C-alpha cells in the first residue's frame, strides 16, 4: 500500500503552498460581531481541530496572483487545443453573469420571483434548438459528458418505453472521444466499436454489416461526432444515419465540434435524434481551468418526453393583461430524471445567451466559416513540413503526425513541449487514437492571420530543430515555469494534499 504524503524531497518550489505561507493567528477577513444573544454551543458535538490556513488578505492576494502567472491562458496566447474550441471568452459575458439579479437569486426561488432568469433559460433553449435543428432542449446537464449520458439514457428509455428490452448495444467509432464509450458503460449498455476507413470516415461497409447482421435487433443506437474527431466532415453521414435508423436504432451526435457547423448544416435536419452541446466550447463560456462546463441536450419530437429535467416552459401564455408569458419549470412526462440538483449551470446559460445575442444567426454562421477557414489555412501551410493524413479539406480542426522521418527520438509529446518555449499551448496530443503521434490542431475563429502565421513559423522552426538538434525538443520545455515532470513518480508516491505544516512555536 503506497504511503500517502511522504516527504517528497524537492529542492525548491515555484511558490509556497498557502499552508506554508500561514502564520498562527493570521486571518484574511474582517467579520462582523454577533448582533443576537448567543446560544450555548453544543460542546460535545464540536471538533477540536481545524487545520485550515492562517493568512492575511495580502498574503492570499499575492499567493493567487503569483499562481495565476504560472498559467498559460487564452487571454495570454494561442491555445490551439483540438476538440476543446479555445476561443476568446468575451468579457461582457463575465459582467452579465455577475449582475446581482442573477448572482444572488436562490435556485429555489418561487417561480414568480425568477421570471427574468427563466426568460433567459427559455430563450436559450429555443436558440440552441434553432441552431441545430431540434425541437426541444434541456439546459440541465452540467457538462458535455453529462449531456452525452443524458442522450444515451434517453435512447435507452425510448426503447424500453416501446416495450423493446433487446436493444442494449451502441455503435461507437474507434475515433471517438473517451467519454463516448465510458458513457455507454455508465448507462448499462455495451459498445460495438466501428473502424474508420482510409478517408477518415466511418467504415460504411462495417457499419452496414452490423446493422444488417445478427445483432441488428440489439442496436439501440449510434454515437458519432460531426465533424469527426479527425476534424473531417463525415461524407456519408446520410447513409450512416439511414443504416442505423433502418436497423431500428437512434442517432446521437456528439456536438463537441459544433463550431464547424453553425449555419453550415443542422444536425436535426440530417436526421439526428439527439445531440449534446458544449456551451464551454462552441458558445464561448470559459473553460475555467477545467470547468465548469455546460452540456445542454437537444432532441427531436420523438425524444422530447424523455429529456432530463427540469426544463423551462411557458406555463401561462401572454394575454391582453400580461405582455410576457409566465415561465415555469416542468418535468417532461417520461423524463429520464434529474441529472443534477436544481436546473443546470445557470451562470453558463447567461454567458451563452449574451454570446448568441452578440452574433445573431448570420453572425454564428460567420463563426463557423472563419473557424473552418483558419484550420484549413494552417493545414495548407504545414502540409509540406508535416505528415497530414487524409488529403481533403478539414473542418474547424485537423490532425497532423508529430514525428519526423529519420529522427527516431522525437515524438508528438516533444513537439508539444517545445511549443511551450515559444509561448504557445500545445495542441491536443495522442488523440484521436487512430493517428500515430497525433497532434490535433484547432485554431478557432477568434485568432488572427498574424497569430496563425506565427504558429506556422514556429512549427516549421521546430521541424528544423528536430533535425539539427533533437535534444532541444526531447528535453523541452526550457522556458516554462517548470521543466518536464516526473509523472510516473506522481502516481507511485501519492501526495494528494498538503500535510498541514504549522509552526507551533
Amino acid at each position: 500500500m503506497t504511503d500517502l504524503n511522504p516527504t517528497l524531497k524537492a529542492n525548491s518550489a515555484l511558490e509556497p503552498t498557502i499552508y506554508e505561507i500561514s502564520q498562527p493567528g493570521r486571518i484574511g477577513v474582517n467579520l462582523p460581531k454577533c448582533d443576537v444573544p448567543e446560544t450555548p454551543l453544543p460542546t460535545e458535538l464540536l471538533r477540536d481541530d481545524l487545520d485550515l490556513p492562517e493568512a492575511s488578505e495580502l498574503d492570499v492576494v499575492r499567493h493567487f496572483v503569483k499562481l495565476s502567472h504560472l498559467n498559460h491562458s487564452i487571454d495570454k496566447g494561442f491555445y490551439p487545443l483540438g476538440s476543446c474550441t479555445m476561443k476568446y471568452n468575451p468579457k461582457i459575458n463575465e459582467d452579465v453573469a455577475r449582475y446581482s439579479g442573477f448572482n444572488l437569486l436562490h435556485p429555489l426561488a418561487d417561480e414568480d420571483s425568477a421570471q427574468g432568469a427563466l426568460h433567459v433559460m427559455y430563450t436559450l433553449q429555443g436558440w440552441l434548438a434553432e441552431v441545430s435543428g431540434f425541437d426541444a432542449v434541456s439546459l440541465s446537464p452540467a457538462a458535455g459528458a453529462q449531456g452525452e449520458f443524458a442522450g444515451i439514457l434517453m435512447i435507452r428509455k425510448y426503447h424500453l418505453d416501446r416495450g423493446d428490452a433487446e436493444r442494449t448495444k451502441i455503435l461507437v467509432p474507434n475515433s471517438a472521444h473517451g467519454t463516448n464509450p465510458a458513457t455507454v458503460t455508465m448507462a448499462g449498455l455495451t459498445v460495438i466499436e466501428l473502424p474508420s476507413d482510409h478517408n477518415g470516415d466511418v467504415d460504411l461497409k462495417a457499419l452496414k454489416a452490423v446493422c444488417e447482421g445478427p445483432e441488428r435487433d440489439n442496436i439501440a443506437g449510434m454515437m458519432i461526432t460531426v465533424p469527426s474527431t479527425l476534424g473531417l466532415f463525415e461524407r456519408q453521414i446520410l447513409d450512416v444515419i439511414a443504416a442505423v435508423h433502418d436497423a431500428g436504432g437512434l442517432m446521437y451526435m456528439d456536438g463537441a465540434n459544433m463550431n464547424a457547423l453553425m449555419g453550415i448544416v443542422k444536425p436535426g435536419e440530417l436526421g439526428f435524434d439527439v445531440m449534446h452541446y458544449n456551451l464551454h466550447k462552441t458558445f464561448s463560456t470559459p473553460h475555467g481551468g477545467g470547468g465548469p462546463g455546460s452540456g445542454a441536450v437537444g432532441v427531436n419530437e420523438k425524444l422530447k418526453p424523455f429529456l432530463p429535467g427540469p426544463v423551462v416552459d411557458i406555463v401561462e401564455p401572454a394575454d391582453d393583461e400580461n405582455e410576457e408569458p409566465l415561465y415555469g419549470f416542468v418535468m417532461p412526462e417520461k423524463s429520464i430524471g434529474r441529472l443534477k440538483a436544481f436546473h443546470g449551470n445557470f451562470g453558463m446559460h447567461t454567458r451563452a445567451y449574451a454570446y448568441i445575442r452578440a452574433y445573431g444567426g448570420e453572425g454564428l454562421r460567420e463563426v463557423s466559416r472563419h473557424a473552418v477557414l483558419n484550420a484549413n489555412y494552417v493545414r495548407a501551410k504545414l502540409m509540406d513540413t508535416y505528415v497530414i493524413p487524409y488529403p481533403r479539406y478539414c473542418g474547424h480542426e485537423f490532425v497532423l503526425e508529430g514525428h519526423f522521418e529519420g529522427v527516431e527520438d522525437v515524438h508528438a509529446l516533444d513537439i508539444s513541449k517545445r511549443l511551450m518555449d515559444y509561448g504557445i499551448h500545445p495542441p491536443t496530443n495522442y488523440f484521436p487514437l487512430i493517428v500515430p503521434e497525433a497532434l490535433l490542431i484547432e485554431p478557432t475563429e477568434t485568432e488572427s492571420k498574424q497569430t496563425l502565421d506565427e504558429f506556422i513559423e514556429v512549427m516549421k522552426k521546430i521541424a528544423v530543430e528536430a533535425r539539427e538538434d533533437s535534444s532541444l525538443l526531447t528535453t523541452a520545455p526550457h522556458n516554462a515555469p517548470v521543466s518536464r515532470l516526473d509523472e510516473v513518480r506522481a502516481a507511485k508516491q501519492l501526495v494528494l494534499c498538503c500535510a498541514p505544516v504549522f509552526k507551533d512555536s
Partner: protein
Amino acid sequence: MSYIPHTELERQQMLSAIGVTTIEDLFDAVPASHRFPKLNLPAAFSEMEIAAEMQALADSNEHAGDFALFRGAGAYHHYIPSVVNHMLLRGEFYTAYTPYQPEVSQGTLQAIFEYQSMMCTLMGMDAANASHYDGATSLAEAVTVAMEVTRYKRKKVILSHAINPQYRAVVRTYHQGRDWKFVGDGGRATQADLIDMLDDNTAMLAVSYPNFFGQIEDFKALAEKVHNVGALLVMMVNPMAMAMYKSPGELGADIVVGEGQPVGVPLGFGGPYVGFFATRSDYVRKIAGRIVGETVDQDGRRAYVMTLRPREQDIRREKASSNICTNQGLMALSACVYLSLMGKRGLRTVAELNYHKAHYAADQIDALPGFSVNREMPFFNEFVVKCPRPVAEINEALIDAGIVGGYDLGQDYAHLKDHALLCVTEMNTKAEIDVLVEELRKLA
C-alpha cells in the same frame, strides 16, 4: 458585433494559400441538400444593448440583494469576500484549460492541490479529488465507488430519507441502467430502522450531516454497525457546518461527499456549484474524477500534475467507472480562495454566527402562537417550523414585506405539509430576523 478579427484582404490571402476561391468551397463534404440553412435568430446586438437587456432581466428577479433571504435547502447565502471574485476574474485562471500540460498550468494545479488539502482537513479524510459537478453527482459517484470496492458483489444501497430529495433523485437517475437497489428513503425511517436494513448485500449506507431538515443526527453508533456488514459509510455534509462539528472522519465515515457552494460560491440561481469527494486512503485509487498530486520536475523543483490518470475515461474508455471529463475547476478555486481568507478562525466564526442567529430566530418563532419549531435534535443553521397555514400562503405575504421565506417541505415529504424549512446565515441581521418574526406573528 463579433470577435472575428479577419479583414477582407486577409480572407483572400488565406483562401489563396488553401487553393480555393470562397470559404464555401471548404464545405464540399457536407450533403448539398442540407447545406447553409438559415438560422432564425434575432439580429445581432451591440455590447451596450446586451448589457441593457440582461440588466433588465436580472433586475426583474426577486433576489437576496433586495430581499431578506431565509431559504436554504441545498443552496446557502453566505458572504463571499471581495478577494474571491477578483481572483476569479483573472483571465489566467478562467481562460485556462484543463491542466493536461502541467508545465504551463502550475497555477491551476497548485490551487486545486490546495483545495484538495482543505477538503481533506474539513472532512477528516486522507484524499480528495479535484471536484465533481455538484453535491448530488458526487453522491451518485460515491455509489459507483462503493460498488467497486465491494467488487460488484453487492446490490443494495441504503439512503436516509433525510438526504436532500433532489440528490436522491439524481442518484437514481444516474444508476437507472444498473441492477442496483436503492432503499430506505421511502418513508420516515430512523437511523435504527436503517441499521436494521444492513446485511451482506449492502454496499453502502448514506446519511446527511446536517440532514435536509437542518438536524445534527447522533452518528456515534453508526459507523461500527455499517462496517460490521462490510459496507461503506458515506456522509453527505455541509462544509460550513464542518467548521464547527466533529469531522466525518472522526465519526467513522469512509467517503465524504457534498456541496461546496456554501464556501465561496454565490447562489447564482443554482449553478455552477462544486461537488466535493473525499475518502480514506484505502479507496484513493477508486475515486472518479480528476486528482492532482505532487511531484518534481527534472531539476528537482516541486510541481503538481494530474495523477492516477489511468482511472479516467480518456484512457480506460468503456472500462472507465465513470465518464467524467470536466470538473468544476474555477469553483474549486473559489472555495480555495475563500477558505484561505477565512482560515481556521474565520470559518469557525462564520459558522458560529450562523448558529447563534438561527437559534435566536428559532426561539422567537417558537414563541409565536400557531408556530412551532422542531427541537427533536440539535440543529446548525436550518430548522423546521410547523406553520398555522400553508407555506405558500405565508411566503406570498412575506414577499410583500421584502422577505423570501422558508422552503415548503410539503413539496417533498407528504408528512410535512404546512412545514417550512427556515435557514438563517451570517447575512441575516438581527433587524431582518425581528421583521420576519413580526410578519409571521401577523399570520398566526
